[in-house]
C-alpha cells in the first residue's frame, strides 16, 4: 500500500514484542502481532 501511494526506499526494522506482559499479550501472540519501525521517502522530482 505504501508503494501504491508513491513511497520509495521502504525499509522495515526488526520486530519489537510491544505487548509482552501487557493485558493484550495473549491476543497479540495469537496473531503474532509485533511492533515495527518503517522508513520511506517521497520521491524527489
Amino acid at each position, binding site marked *: *500500500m*505504501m*508503494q*501504491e*501511494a*508513491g*513511497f520509495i526506499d*521502504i*525499509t*522495515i*526494522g526488526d*520486530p*519489537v514484542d*510491544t*505487548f*509482552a*506482559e*501487557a*493485558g*493484550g499479550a495473549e*491476543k497479540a501472540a*495469537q*496473531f*503474532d*502481532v*509485533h*511492533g*515495527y*519501525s*518503517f*522508513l*520511506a*521517502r*517521497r*520521491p*524527489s*522530482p
Partner: protein
Amino acid sequence: MLRQRAIAMTAELLVDTELLRNQVREKYREVAVEPHRAFHFHTGRPLAVRLGYEPDGVDALPDRAVESFAGVGNPFSLRALQPGERVVDVGSGAGFDSFIAAGHVGPTGEVIGIDMTPEMLAKSRGTTEMLGLDHVTFREGFAEAIPVEDRWADVVISNGVINLCADKRAVFDEILRVLKPGGWLQFADIANGRPVPPDARADIDLWTG
C-alpha cells in the same frame, strides 16, 4: 512474508470510519486522563525503555509528557532527525514523540502535532507551555485530513496510529501530500504475522481492545 504483509495492508474499509474514530477517541481520552490505569498495552516511561528510546531524551521530559505515551515502536530508530527539520507528528497524543522530535530538530526546526482527542490536545498544549517551547504546536485534525499545507514537512512521524485508521490508503496519501519531495516518512506500527479471520477484522471492538 511477514514484511510483505506489513506493507501490503488491506485496501478495503473493514469498519465504519466514524464509529472507529469515536471508539479510538474514547480509549485515548482514558489514556490522557487516567494514564496509570491498566490498559491492554503498555504506557509511559517503562514503555519508552522497552522501545529503545534514548534515556537522556526521555528523562529530560516531565511526567505529563511521558505518562500517556502509548506507542508501539520507535520512529527514530531507522533515521535520526536533523537540526532544522520541519516535522509533522500524525496522532501526537499527549505529545511524547513531538517533544522528543523537538529536542532533535532544535530551535531552528519546527514540530506540528496532529491529534483528534481533545484531552490529548489539552495535555500536549499544556506541556508545551510548561516547557516554554515556541517551535512546537498542536492542531486538532485527522490522519486522513492532515491540517498542514502541501509540501511543508521534511519528515512525518507517527507511532501506533495508522493501524487505528479505517482508510489507511487515505492516510498515506495525506502524508505524501504534506511531505516535501525527498522528505521522509518514519513511523512505527503493528503488523500481524498470522492472518486475522475476516469476522475478527470486522469486529470494531478488537481494533482498540
